[in-house]
């Protein structure tokens, strides 16, 4: 599940993008992991995540199986964090997304104290992640670096569309949908927040960063200056 490694953008565009996730190792420390995974999410909720989720059961923003048609005029879907916690019923990957370093560091410090025994990773700018580790008194164990895309680059969409769509690394936010949302924001048919929510519902892991998405959509409104 390399679903956050290859987010597209330059270093500046990741200034508000930190994903922390916890996962057990199959057959090693997954036997009693359910409560630990829930604990991870409970701790994350104390530090204002902009999204969170369970890779098997979904994130904060989810599609509705039976939607009332009035949603076209007034769509209100409460975020049910307690349901996300309750639905965890076995080994999975849980994640929380933060849009600032202060919340990230505070969360990591709490995670360290909680000593869950699960593998914890930060996906984001490598130097920022390292600084966060140092601040929390942690020596990082391993690092995986994204070296970007190769091959038929002409088959990829334009940069802002990639920035938005690759926030679901599983490819569930299609480039066409990301472009559609950008056009709708530009045309004044949706606000950046509404467009970001529509896109986020396709991200099954809950790693879509709502703050970064709104910033990208707002910038697209002004022609990506």
């Amino acid at each position, binding site marked *: *599940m390399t679903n956050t490694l290859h987010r597209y953008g330059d270093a500046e565009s990741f200034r508000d993008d930190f994903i922390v996730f916890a996962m057990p190792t199959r057959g090693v420390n997954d036997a*009693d992991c359910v409560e630990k995974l829930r604990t991870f999410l409970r*701790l994350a909720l104390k530090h204002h995540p902009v999204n969170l989720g369970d890779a098997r059961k979904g994130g904060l923003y989810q599609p509705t199986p039976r939607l009332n048609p009035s949603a076209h005029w007034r769509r209100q879907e409460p975020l049910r964090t307690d349901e996300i916690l309750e639905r965890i019923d076995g080994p999975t*990957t849980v994640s929380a997304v933060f849009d600032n370093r202060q919340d990230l560091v505070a969360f990591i410090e709490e995670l360290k104290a909680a000593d869950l025994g699960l*593998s914890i990773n930060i996906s984001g700018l490598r130097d920022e992640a390292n600084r966060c580790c140092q601040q929390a008194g942690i020596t990082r164990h*391993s*690092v995986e670096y994204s070296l970007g895309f190769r091959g*038929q680059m002409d088959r990829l969409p334009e940069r802002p569309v990639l920035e938005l769509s690759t926030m679901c690394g599983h490819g569930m936010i299609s480039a066409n949908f990301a472009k559609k949302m950008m056009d709708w924001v530009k045309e004044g048919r949706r606000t950046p927040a509404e467009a970001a929510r529509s896109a986020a519902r396709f991200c099954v892991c809950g790693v879509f960063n709502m703050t970064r998405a709104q910033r990208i959509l707002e910038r697209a409104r002004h022609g990506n200056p």
Partner: protein
Amino acid sequence: MRIDQWRCVACGNCLAVCPVGAIHIDPGVGRAVINEDACVECYNCFRGMSKEHLFPPMVRAIRRVAKAFRFRFDPEPDICPTDAIVPTELGWPRVVRRAFSDPVVEHAATGIHGRGTEEVKTNDVTHRVGEGETGFVVEFGRPGVGVRFHEIQRMTRALAELGVEFEKKNPVTSMMSDPKRGEIREDVLNEKILSAIVEFKTTLERVPELLGRIEEVAEGLSTVVALGVSTRCDSAGQSRLPDLLAGEGYTAFRGKTNLGLGRTPPAGSVDPRGGSAS
């Protein structure tokens, strides 16, 4: 996946939702249809859209009236108004498409959902990549282009020629008929999937050679390749890999950092700390 032709009202919402652009409105019948060859069975149209369950003839009548008066209704973009998208039973080898494209499906080979790999995310527990070693994750088809297995095989064959040993607990390796030669089983070669990851590890010294070969092969493929490399840090949290990458002209400012908080519980024990920290 298929679209129920009686239920579809040709609203067009699902067209933009498809990651590989496999859905279009057939002008002959005025309904959305799926190009089966292009569809990767990711289930995004079925699972990702909210559903209204409206009565199709009623919706069609309203749409006809609105169209006649040139009214533009501005519906929510992530809704199928009539629940027209229907999963179909997938036989072999088509079921492989879903296994490699639908992120909520667990890979039988590894027991992991998504792309089915742990890479160095659990390296603090598995110790798969050690100090002085580099793990490679070579991903095909991402983002949104897709790939067929015969394209992946071109890369795995080239890497096998260099003596690469593929990660055993990996979904692509599980599709190989001869891992030593990088051969993928013939009956899946033409299957199109959204993305797949080839994994292996090597010594730090071989990184430039292997990166060069991967780039070379990637240029000849008709898809995109996303490249990732990983390493185990030393006791000070440092490694030689970033300098090595910089020396080869790679900028690697983003990635995943494993904090080393995972551990292996003693044999036969149940960790009493489950949930105690809340």
